[in-house]
C-alpha cells in the first residue's frame, strides 16, 4: 500500500492489464484482465483495505492467496498470479464461464431432479477440494459457478487448509462465514471440519428445494444460534414436497453434530446417486409417531457408537477411515466358494474401518445388446432373482441399512459394467474375485485384470487357493466367458 494506484481499465499490474470491472463489494473489486502469457480468460481480484482497519480483508486476502496457490483441478479457477500485500495486493485467476448458483436459488423452488443434479455437482467439487486438504467454509450460492466442467468453487478467503496455519486465528471475536449457510460448529468458532462444507451444501439444496435457507437469513446472534438447537427433523415439514430420499439426504447434511452428517462428500454423492436406496430415518419420516416423540427420540438417541470412534486427526485419515467399498460379486453360479471368499475379505475391510459403507454390485450378463430383459423360469425379470441373491450374499455381514446398497448391473461385458459403475460413483476400494487361470482367460484377459488395470481406486483381488477352481465354471445358461 506504499503508493496508491488508480484502479481503472487499462492499468497494468505485473503484466496483467485491467479490463472491465465485473464486481464491486465491501471487500474489494473483481476485474476482467488480459496477460500476454495467458490465453485463458482472466479476472483479477483486488481487495480493498481501508488503512488501519478492516483487518479481516487483509486476512481474507492472505488466506485466499495461500490456498488458491495450492489448489488445482476442474473445481477451482486456475491460479495465475498474485501481488504482495505491501505493494498492490491482487490475485489473478482464470475467469470461469458459467452461471452463479445464485441464479438457481433466485428461481427456487426448482424441480427435485434439478436439486439432485446440483447436489451431485457440489459433492463432486467437495470431494476434489477436500482431497486437496482444503475446506472452503464459505459456500453459498454466490460462491459457486455452474460451468460446463461442473461446479467451480470461488472465493477461498475464509478457507482452511488441514496442514497449514489457520490465518483466521483462534482469537476471532465473531463467527465468520455467510449466516444462512454457516454450520453450527463454525458459529462456535471451529474451522477444522470438512463436514462444515457438507452442511453448507445441505443448506443450499434445502433452499433450492424450498426457496428459503433452513434458518432464513438471520441477522442477530440469537437468530444465528437457532441452528445449534434445532434437530433436522424439525426442518422436515418444509421438505414435504420433495422425494423422501432427497429430504433424508438434505436433513442428514444439516445435522447439528458434524459426526451425524456424511463423513465425507463421497458418501453424500453416493446417496445422491442412489436416492431410491437411501435409508429413511426419523429425520425425514414425518409420519412415524408424534412430533414430540420424534424430537424426544432424537435428543435421547444414544451416541456411544460415534463417541467410541475417535475422530480422525487429519483429512487424509478421514478419507481412509470412511471409505466407500465396492464388492463385485459374480453370482452367475450362485453363492459359490469364490463369492464367499470375496465376502470374507469384505468383512475384514469393513471391520477395520467402522465408518465405511458398502456397495454390493453384481453383473447380470445380457448376451446381445438390445436383447429383451432376461427372465427366469417363473417369468420374472432375472434382475429380481439376482437382487435377492445379492442381498442374501450380504446378509451375514449384518450391516445397518444406511451403510449398504445393492446394485444389479446389466451388460454384455462384466468388466466394462463394473468400471462404468466405479467411475460414476465415489469408490475408494474394490474387492472382487478372480477365477484361477485357464488358457482361455490368459488369452482374453480376465475381468479382474481389466478392472485392476483401469480402476482409479484400490483393488483387492481374491483368489481361491491352488486346489480346485482351476477350470472354467461348469457350463450353464450364463457360462459364456466374461470376455465374450
Amino acid at each position: 500500500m506504499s503508493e496508491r494506484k488508480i484502479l481503472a481499465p487499462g492499468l497494468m499490474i505485473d503484466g496483467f492489464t485491467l479490463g472491465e470491472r465485473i464486481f464491486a463489494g465491501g471487500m474489494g473489486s473483481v476485474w476482467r484482465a488480459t496477460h500476454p502469457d495467458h490465453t485463458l480468460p482472466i479476472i483479477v481480484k483486488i481487495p480493498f483495505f481501508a488503512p488501519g482497519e478492516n483487518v479481516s480483508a487483509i486476512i481474507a486476502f492472505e488466506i485466499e492467496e495461500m490456498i488458491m496457490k495450492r489448489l488445482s483441478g476442474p473445481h477451482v479457477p486456475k491460479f495465475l498470479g498474485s501481488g504482495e500485500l505491501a505493494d498492490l495486493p491482487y490475485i489473478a485467476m482464470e475467469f470461469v464461464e458459467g452461471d452463479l448458483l445464485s441464479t438457481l436459488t433466485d428461481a427456487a423452488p426448482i424441480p427435485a431432479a434439478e436439486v439432485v443434479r446440483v447436489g451431485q455437482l457440489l459433492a463432486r467439487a467437495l470431494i476434489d477440494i477436500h482431497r486437496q486438504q482444503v475446506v472452503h467454509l464459505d459456500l453459498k450460492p454466490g460462491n459457486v459457478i455452474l460451468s460446463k466442467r461442473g461446479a467451480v468453487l470461488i472465493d477461498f478467503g475464509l478457507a482452511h487448509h488441514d496442514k497449514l496455519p489457520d490465518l483466521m486465528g483462534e482469537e476471532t471475536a465473531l463467527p465468520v462465514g455467510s449466516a444462512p449457510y454457516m454450520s453450527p460448529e463454525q458459529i462456535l468458532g471451529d474451522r477444522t471440519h470438512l463436514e462444515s462444507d457438507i452442511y453448507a451444501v445441505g443448506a443450499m439444496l434445502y433452499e433450492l428445494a424450498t426457496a428459503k435457507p433452513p434458518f432464513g437469513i438471520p441477522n442477530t446472534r440469537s437468530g444465528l444460534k437457532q441452528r445449534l438447537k434445532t434437530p433436522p427433523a424439525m426442518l422436515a415439514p418444509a421438505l414435504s414436497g420433495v422425494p423422501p430420499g432427497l429430504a433424508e439426504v438434505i436433513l442428514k447434511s444439516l445435522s447439528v453434530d458434524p459426526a451425524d452428517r456424511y463423513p465425507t462428500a463421497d458418501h453424500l454423492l453416493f446417496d445422491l446417486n442412489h436416492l431410491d436406496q437411501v435409508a429413511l430415518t426419523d429425520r425425514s419420516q414425518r409420519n412415524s409417531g408424534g412430533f414430540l416423540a420424534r424430537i424426544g427420540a432424537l435428543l435421547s438417541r444414544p451416541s456411544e457408537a460415534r463417541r467410541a470412534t475417535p475422530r480422525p486427526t487429519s483429512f487424509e485419515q478421514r478419507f481412509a477411515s470412511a471409505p466407500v467399498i465396492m464388492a463385485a460379486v459374480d453370482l452367475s453360479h450362485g453363492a459359490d466358494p469364490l463369492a464367499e471368499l470375496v465376502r470374507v475379505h469384505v468383512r475384514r475391510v469393513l471391520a477395520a474401518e467402522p465408518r465405511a459403507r458398502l456397495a454390493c454390485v453384481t453383473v447380470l450378463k445380457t448376451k446381445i445388446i438390445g436383447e429383451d430383459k432376461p427372465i427366469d423360469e417363473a417369468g420374472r425379470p432375472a434382475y429380481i432373482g439376482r437382487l435377492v441373491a445379492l442381498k442374501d450374499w450380504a446378509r451375514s455381514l449384518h450391516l445397518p441399512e444406511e451403510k449398504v446398497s445393492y446394485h444389479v448391473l446389466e451388460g454384455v461385458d462384466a468388466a466394462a459394467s463394473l468400471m462404468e459403475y466405479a467411475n460414476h460413483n465415489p469408490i475408494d476400494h474394490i474387492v472382487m474375485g478372480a477365477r484361477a487361470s485357464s488358457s482361455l482367460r490368459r488369452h482374453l484377459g480376465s475381468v479382474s485384470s481389466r478392472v485392476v488395470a483401469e480402476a482409479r481406486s484400490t483393488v483387492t483381488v481374491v483368489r481361491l487357493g491352488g486346489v480346485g477352481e482351476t477350470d472354467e465354471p461348469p457350463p450353464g445358461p450364463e457360462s459364456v466367458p466374461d470376455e465374450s
Partner: protein
Amino acid sequence: MRLALLTDIHGNAEALGACLEHIAAVGVDGYVILGDIVGYGPDPGPVIDKVMELQSRGAVVLLGNHDEAIADGVAGMSELAAEAIHWTREQLSAEHKAFLAGLPLTHQVGNALFVHSSARDPGDWNYVIHRLHAVDCFDATDARRIFCGHTHRPILFHQLAGRPVEEFVPKPNAKVPFSRARRYLAVIGSVGQPRDHNPNACWALLEPDGLTLNRIAYDIDSTARKIAATRLPRWLGLRLYEGR
C-alpha cells in the same frame, strides 16, 4: 536462498549424519546451526568436528546453553543434563572447548534472526513454549522472522500487526508458507533428541517463501548402544526411541 537450520544436535552423530545426507540430497545454499551441539549424546567430539567442518564451508554456528556449560559450569541445569555435561567435558579436546567458547549468541541477516533460545535476553536461555513467551520474544527484536531451538518441540508462532499471536504445530515435511503481512517465530525441533513424541531427527529448510520441518529416521539403535557403553545415564538412550 535456501538454508538448512539444525539445532540441538546434542552429540548425536547418527541423527546429524542422517540429516546431512538428506540435506545434501535436497540441496541448500547454506547452514545455520542454532546451538546445543553437545550434551546428552555419546559423540560430542565427532559432532563438533563435523560442525567445525561445516563452519569452514560457510555455516553459521551459534552457542547453546549446553555448549556454554562446558566452560561456564552447570548452574541452573537439571541433574541429568549436568551429569552429561561432566562426562562430555572429559571427552573434548582443548580445541573443541575453544571452538565452543567462541560461538556467538545470535546471528541476524536482513529481517531474519537466528538464536538458540528466546530473542529476549538470549544469554538467559529462556524457553519459547507458550504464546506469552512468543510475545516477549517478538517484543525484544525488530526481526520479522525469528528462528530458535532449545525446547526440542517444534512450534510456529505468527502474528499480524495489531492482532494476537497465533500458534501452529507444523506438520512433518509439509512446507508452511510465509505471509508477508505477518511476523513469524519458529521453534525448530531437535536433531539429536526430539521431544515431541516423534523420534525422527528434525531439520528445517528455510526458503524465502516458507519453512519446512523435515523429519528423518536414523539409526537410534547405534546411538542408544553407544550411550549404554558410556557412563552416561541409560535413560538418555531410551528416550530417543520415544521422542521424549
